[in-house]
């Protein structure tokens, strides 16, 4: 049994239900992205192992903080809000899941033990995938599929917001990875207006994102690829 810092427990008991629901929904959204990102890259079926979903991952992160399995280091995550430590925990859990799956999948690359610190999980998974790509365990054609898929998402978003020149302009700058202030400067509008455009863009594009997130992963086996071609 891990020892929970009494101050952490006092804080965790002090949040209102509304605050907890805000944290929870934010974590589910972040977990959804993390899962898609990592599994999408490896071309896996999209199903998480061990019956996990973005929702169970968010709950697991909160449970770990309550139970003391994850310690809230106030120097690293200062302030009264737990969202920083919780999102780091979500990332760590997803990293661990991916890592365990990658170990199974790329057994040919043996020599990696499972007892590493979870903070190494992402790097470890990255290394495994890169090695797998190097050994052609992930087919190069899959990478091409990723690019096509993401370009198709961008094209569909442009179509969806096409009737609004201001949203298209915002989206083009957003896709250049510009900061909020840079977008404001380039568009010649206030920061509040950028926030408004961002909100409207998200609302309009959500359907495309849902389709992208629900879509089956590009297949990573020769038979499926041949069947498709």
């Amino acid at each position: 049994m891990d020892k929970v810092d009494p101050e952490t427990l006092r804080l965790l008991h002090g949040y209102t239900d509304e605050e907890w629901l805000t944290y929870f929904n934010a974590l589910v959204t972040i977990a959804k992205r993390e899962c898609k990102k990592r599994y999408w890259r490896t071309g896996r079926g999209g199903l998480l192992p061990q019956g996990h979903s973005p929702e169970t991952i968010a709950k697991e992160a909160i449970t770990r903080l309550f139970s003391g399995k994850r310690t809230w280091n106030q120097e690293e995550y200062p302030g009264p809000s737990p969202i920083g430590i919780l999102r780091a925990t979500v990332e760590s859990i997803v990293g661990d899941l991916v890592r365990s799956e990658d170990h199974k999948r790329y057994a040919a690359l043996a020599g990696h033990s499972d007892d590493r610190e979870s903070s190494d999980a992402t790097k470890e998974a990255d290394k495994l995938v890169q090695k797998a790509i190097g050994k052609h365990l992930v087919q190069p054609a899959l990478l091409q599929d990723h690019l096509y898929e993401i370009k198709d998402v961008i094209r569909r978003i442009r179509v969806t917001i096409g009737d609004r020149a201001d949203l298209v302009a915002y989206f083009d700058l957003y896709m250049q990875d510009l900061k909020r202030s840079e977008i404001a400067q380039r568009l010649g509008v206030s920061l509040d207006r950028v926030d408004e455009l961002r909100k409207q863009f998200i609302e309009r594009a959500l359907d495309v994102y849902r389709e992208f997130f629900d879509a089956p992963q590009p297949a990573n086996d020769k038979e499926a690829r041949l069947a498709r071609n």
Partner: protein
Amino acid sequence: MAENNNAEKMFDTLTTWMDSADAMNLTQLRQVRRAMGDDVEKSERGFLADLAKLKAENPIPEVQRIEGLLVIAKRLGLDVAGLANQTGLSVVLITKLDRRLIRPLSVPQRVCRLLAEALNTAVELIVEYLQQSPMLATEASFRAKENPRIQEQQDFFEAVRSDRSVSEERRSALLALEEQQPPR
């Protein structure tokens, strides 16, 4: 490889707004989750039920307090002199510590540990006890005509130096702890 990096980079940028979900309010988050196909009401109900369970399983620890150094000592069959001997202190120092007339931050960790061992309790509880407000002398409270005044807290090592009842051997041992004290 460049294509893979390119696709990943585009994925990251395309979904950056999801990564900033912690900056959204509850209404926005619910809207996003609904639009992404989640049954938000069911999900939130399940979460709140799990949260209630977590809170019940991990309650806020009650602040434990000890009633007094001499109260515990008495329960263990020790008088003030016995406790002084067991801890290498003096009757005067024990009495001052019991009444919290010593500045808590000046009390060496070793002294807290010795007291905890002698009183069969946790060091944290000794520290917590010493950090409470100074206690009135019970006698002074009814003898004086004026309202009883709380004595000012004294530095532990000052108390050791001014204590005429402590043996030279114990005094030296206690003062040696001063060098190990962190700067105050």
